[in-house]
């Protein structure tokens, strides 16, 4: 399949159309119906959480949040294919995949409320925290994949980046190292057409991102990122490719950031309603739902029920996070070194003396 969709052929890989009709039976993934329904549910959950998070932010109950709206199929597909053992190296717009890997919503909320505890992900195996400096995480995934190869482990490293991120030098170095080392890492580029306000054509003059794989002698594929089935199939193929020792794969997931960059951003400043409406037709949730409805695997009623449950669950976890409590002084200091250096300890003690003085003053 990776051959058939060699990026030099400039064919985007797609399995269903905007109405959820299968248009590519040859590469329709081999999935039991329940798993497809599960994908739909997870997508619905992720979207519900996303929308509710935006509203919490509007209420001033969390700080800045980067919505996933419109891009969720990518994370859901990856999430289904990542084994417990595989590594996940996120950027910051992969809620669905992080949940699949064992993060909890509560933790994500804690993070956006301003606790580092929200990026410890205590129960998630082999997932490192969000990386804020764009594209820098890609190199970590390559290093992890080196360990996999060195230790001959049956694992794959998944990593994510945005279209904007492909302009950074670290994108280049990561793909180049991975190509030379031939390590099992999948680079998933969420090409959502914008880096904040900067449109894709201002990021690069190349014809998409997948084609950049040529520069590193590695495989690449351009996929309709709003098509769950296409994403699933492409990642599945890429995983086999990597596991068989054939090296990394660059997967370009063509999608659209339907919401704002973050809750502090206003997209009306830089894009048109028409464009948004055009992409609305390709919404991944709608398309997956249309597929399932046609197959009579879900009904509107089921959806209503799910939605109600999900809202409650999101709220429950949010409330838990809101009651997390104050931030101990200890936590400012204790995680920098295995053992706290004397001078740092002295700084902590000095600060605590100040706090006592302050309390006494009032």
């Amino acid at each position: 399949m990776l051959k058939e969709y060699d990026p030099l052929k400039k064919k985007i890989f797609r399995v269903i159309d905007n109405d959820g009709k299968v248009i590519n039976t040859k590469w329709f993934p081999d999935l039991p119906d329940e798993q497809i329904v599960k994908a739909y549910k997870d997508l619905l959950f992720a979207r519900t959480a996303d929308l509710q998070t935006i509203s919490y932010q509007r209420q001033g109950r969390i700080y800045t949040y980067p919505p996933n709206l419109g891009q969720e199929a990518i994370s859901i597909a990856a999430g289904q294919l990542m084994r417990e053992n595989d590594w996940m190296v996120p950027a910051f717009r992969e809620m669905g995949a992080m949940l699949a890997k064992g993060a909890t919503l509560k933790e994500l909320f804690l993070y956006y409320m301003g606790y580092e505890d929200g990026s410890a992900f205590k129960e998630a195996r082999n997932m490192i925290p969000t990386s804020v400096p764009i594209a820098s995480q890609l190199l970590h995934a390559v290093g992890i994949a080196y360990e996999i190869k060195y230790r001959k482990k049956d694992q794959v490293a998944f990593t994510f980046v945005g279209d904007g991120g492909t302009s950074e030098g670290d994108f280049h170095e990561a793909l180049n190292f991975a190509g030379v080392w031939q390590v099992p890492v999948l680079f998933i580029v969420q090409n959502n057409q914008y880096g904040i306000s900067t449109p894709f054509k201002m990021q690069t003059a190349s014809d998409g991102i997948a084609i950049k794989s040529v520069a590193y002698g590695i495989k690449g594929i351009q996929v309709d990122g709003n098509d769950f089935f296409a994403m699933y199939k492409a990642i599945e193929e890429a995983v086999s490719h990597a596991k068989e020792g054939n090296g990394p794969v660059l997967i370009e997931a063509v999608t659209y950031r339907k919401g704002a960059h973050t809750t502090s951003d206003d997209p009306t400043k830089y894009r048109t309603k028409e464009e948004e409406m055009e992409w609305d037709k390709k919404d991944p949730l709608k398309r997956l739902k249309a597929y399932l409805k046609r197959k009579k695997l879900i009904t509107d009623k089921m959806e209503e029920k799910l939605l109600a449950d999900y809202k409650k669950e999101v709220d429950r976890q949010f409330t838990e996070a809101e009651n997390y409590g104050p931030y101990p002084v200890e936590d400012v200091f204790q995680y920098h070194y295995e053992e706290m250096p004397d001078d740092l300890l002295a700084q902590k003690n000095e600060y605590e003396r100040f706090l006592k003085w302050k309390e006494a003053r009032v």
Partner: protein
Amino acid sequence: MKVMNMVQSINNALDIKLKEDDSVIIYGEDVGVEGGVFRITEGLQKKYGADRVFDSPLAESGIIGTAVGMAVAGLRPVVEMQFSGFVYPGFNQIISHAARMRNRSRGKFTTPMVIRMPYGGGINALEHHSESMETLFGHIPGLKVVIPSTPHDAKGLLIAAIESNDTVIYMEPKRMYRAIKQEVPEEKFNIPLGKAQVISPGTDITVVAYGAMIREVQKAMVLAKEAGISVELIDLRSIYPIDRDTLATSVKKTGRILTVTEGPRSFGVASEITQIINEDAFLYLEAPPKRVTGFDTIVPLPKGEHHYMQSAEKIFYELEKTVKY
């Protein structure tokens, strides 16, 4: 005169320079159509065209490295780092080229460029969005490093920075962007780089600060006044070159000094000031030069940030101890 906040006064400075000098070029991530995430460059692309004010690809080394080239070729690029915490991918271009081209070419090529970047804490931001790492730039030979504390100074210093034939790191205390308004002359004016300013004279102790810390010190001064302590407040304005004279003159009068900075403690600006005072005013010192700074830790996320920040009380606490020493 017009009442402006710092966002407006910086925008105004850029506007003036764009207008009077067509070698001034502004670019960076999202500075064009959107006018930057803090709206500093708002309206400038419309006014001066997309070849003079524009969005660049997301790549800090690319931004700074191309600016070095533009500057060598005779332009005066003013580039923006979206946050100072994201300047590091471009660090090599700063230290290896922007700071060195003049010396390497024995003055034949210069790099008259300004790298603007919002820095500092207090805005409840994500990781990497609250750093104060001015020391790193201060230690690099060949750079000038400037930090304004008011809308007025922001304008005068930025104009001077753009007109300077040296590379200037211009750090904007983002917490001050919209925090205060002030009368600012509408016409062009310069504030010389490298000069500190005595903001308010006093006799018991010298306090040195810059950027957003000035306001915190001013709050602490209310407490100091209640306690009968007279503070001489100096706005450093320029991290490099550092204005030794103003510092030493003040300490010769007060005999005591406290420096307030946001960044990590060790190897920070406060230590340099202490060294300078030891060199230039040792015999006048009545107490050890003191520092109120961030810890040697990463700035905590918002819920823990108050622990890290310098508050009026924390400043007063140390100030009083130093005066009573």
